[in-house]
């Protein structure tokens, strides 16, 4: 850690805030009580800017920037909430719903799902794009866990936790665009994976009912994620 911490000052939604130079807009916003919705971000994991829900407007830039991977700069004027951003966030979540088969009422994560909570907080009542209703498989070959691709939003938390924290790198991506899937090993059934340690971290970081413990009935799957930042700290040798 550098002894001299460089401080930047900026504005988020008109509020003057101070931040360390190595912080992201998202971190600073949350420290200052400004909520920016996220889905792929999880405290304790590296950010990849995959879900695009945290897009913000920055004065002087004609692009929208993902708050989770954009570092603060001196004098930045950030808009985290505007009608345009709200409408974009809504459509992103609606497209997530339309892309796979998310049926909350019978899902094991019903009531404890980040996607569901996000939709509720954004006030989504309908999905305005046509559902794709893809035919996707459930892999229940693992003795303790199940991956249901119908409920996956490709946030890649499972890929990152397995790589960054557990160090097994069992999970990865496969295919591009609409055909993208998360896979275990080289696209082998999870139950046959040699690299999987069976630690279950992927299950608990998954925001939806895509990765779940076997045998959970509807609404019974609660995820525990609080452990992550501590694991990160401990593994880096810091107390």
């Amino acid at each position, binding site marked *: 850690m550098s002894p001299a911490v460089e401080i930047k000052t900026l504005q988020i939604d008109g509020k003057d805030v101070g931040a360390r130079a190595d912080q992201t807009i998202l971190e600073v916003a949350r420290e200052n009580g400004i909520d920016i919705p996220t889905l792929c971000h999880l405290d304790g994991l590296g950010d990849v800017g995959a879900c695009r829900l945290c897009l913000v407007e920055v004065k002087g830039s004609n692009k929208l920037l993902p708050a989770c991977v954009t570092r603060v700069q001196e004098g930045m004027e950030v808009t985290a909430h505007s009608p345009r951003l709200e409408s974009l966030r809504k459509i992103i979540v609606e497209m997530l719903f339309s892309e796979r088969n998310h049926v909350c009422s019978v899902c094991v994560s019903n009531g404890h799902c980040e996607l569901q909570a996000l939709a509720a907080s954004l006030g989504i009542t309908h999905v305005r794009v046509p559902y794709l209703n893809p035919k996707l498989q459930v892999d229940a070959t693992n003795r303790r866990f199940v991956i249901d691709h119908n409920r996956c939003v490709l946030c890649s938390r499972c890929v990152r936790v397995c790589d960054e924290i557990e160090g097994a790198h069992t999970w990865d991506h496969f295919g591009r665009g609409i055909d993208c899937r998360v896979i275990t090993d080289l696209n082998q059934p999870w139950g046959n994976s040699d690299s999987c340690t069976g630690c279950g971290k992927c299950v608990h970081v998954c925001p939806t009912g895509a990765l779940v413990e*076997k045998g959970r*009935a509807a609404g019974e799957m609660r995820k525990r994620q609080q452990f992550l930042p501590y694991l990160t700290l401990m593994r880096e040798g810091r107390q």
Partner: protein
Amino acid sequence: MQTVVIDPVTRIEGHSKITIQLDDHGMVQDAHFHVTQFRGFEKLCEGRPFYEMPALMARICGICPVSHLIASAKACDAILAVRIPETAEKLRRIMNLAQIVQSHALSFFHLSSPDFLLGMDSDPAKRNIFGVAAHSPEMSRDGVRLRKFGQEIIELLGGKRIHPAWVVPGGVSEPLKVEYRDKILKSIPEAKDIVFRTLAWFKRQLESFREEIRTFANFPSLFMALTKEDGNLAFYKGWLRLVDADGEVVQDHVDPADYQEYIGEAVEPWSYLKSPYYKPLGYPKGMYRVGPLARLNMAKRCGTPLADQELAEFRELERRFVLSSFYYHYARLIEALFAIERIEAYLEEPEILGKHVRAYAGPNNYNGVGVAEAPRGTLIHNYRIDESGLITHANLIIATGHNNLAMNRGVLQVAKHFIKGRTIPEGMLNRVEAVIRCYDPCLSCSTHALGQMRLHLELRDAGGTVLSEVKR
């Protein structure tokens, strides 16, 4: 030749129509009860983990989700190969009985009481629950209160009234709280009073429905129901038994898991509802009836004092078995009384507050059958899974399905009796619908289908031209 079509059939649960064929002299030649909706739950659950089935299958119906939860969870218990904790079984039984009460209340008061109270020939615009409320506020209040009694028990046990996810493979997800038990016990006397009042009133009405009793699906048929080892009324667990119209046991001690040896399912092109039949007699001779009438005909006793008194009186209706489907309504009230008494008895047992309510296991059998008595009759769920626990095949036989042949036969009987000639008074058509209502069919369940309550009746001539039509 003409055809009369009633489309949609009203005050039933689901979407259907009735067609009545008239010959050149205007006499009824044939009649069909068509179920016009389709959903395909058996197909859409393929590939899903088996332990998700109870919650998924409950979505078949908003009126009797508990029946599906119970039958589905029992099929999953069979896959797990576990014997669920005693407390869990009793809690499931309470929820199942609570649903019997609420569903029977719905059928009797909300759907059928307009015919009893206002008359079969009364103004169709008023012949509904609102008409009942205007004519007899006490009666409509009783209906609402009795249904609430059942629904509240379901909510207190399962967290919500419709589709509670509390019934899970291996038991239930939460034990019963002591304050909830006390709350339910407090509501029992009122529920009993309502059923007593209604039974007394209904028995007085029977005299004015002699013609309907005589003609509403009043014919010999087989009856099927679950029965306990001692021959008493069973709703949750038992052997399947088939009895003929003379009360002779045709098939006894059938393990519900072997249902396919005795029950076949026929498909007719004019309905989405399959027609189950008793295999040894073949199709369509193997017609049988299920539900309240079948259960009471078959049961040696109910097993609770008040319901047994009523059952004794019910038995006096006929020399042998009670064959008129009009008496389904009567049987429903007696069953509601039994259910209330039984709920009270279970709640008074100390084990009901036990904390061990769930057994855990992985899939140990590739095939699981769950059978329970739903308000409308025997409900069968059967799942097959692969080695990782994903459903490869599901077969459901729903109470309303068992009654399909008998309902068709009943429609024909009523039509023959009440419909004569080209012009048909509305009250006569209502009787054709009313015979269907006796069975309280749940068509959404029986086709595992999606739809709304409607009725469409058409009268066609020999050339197929529609002569008259009633639509609601």
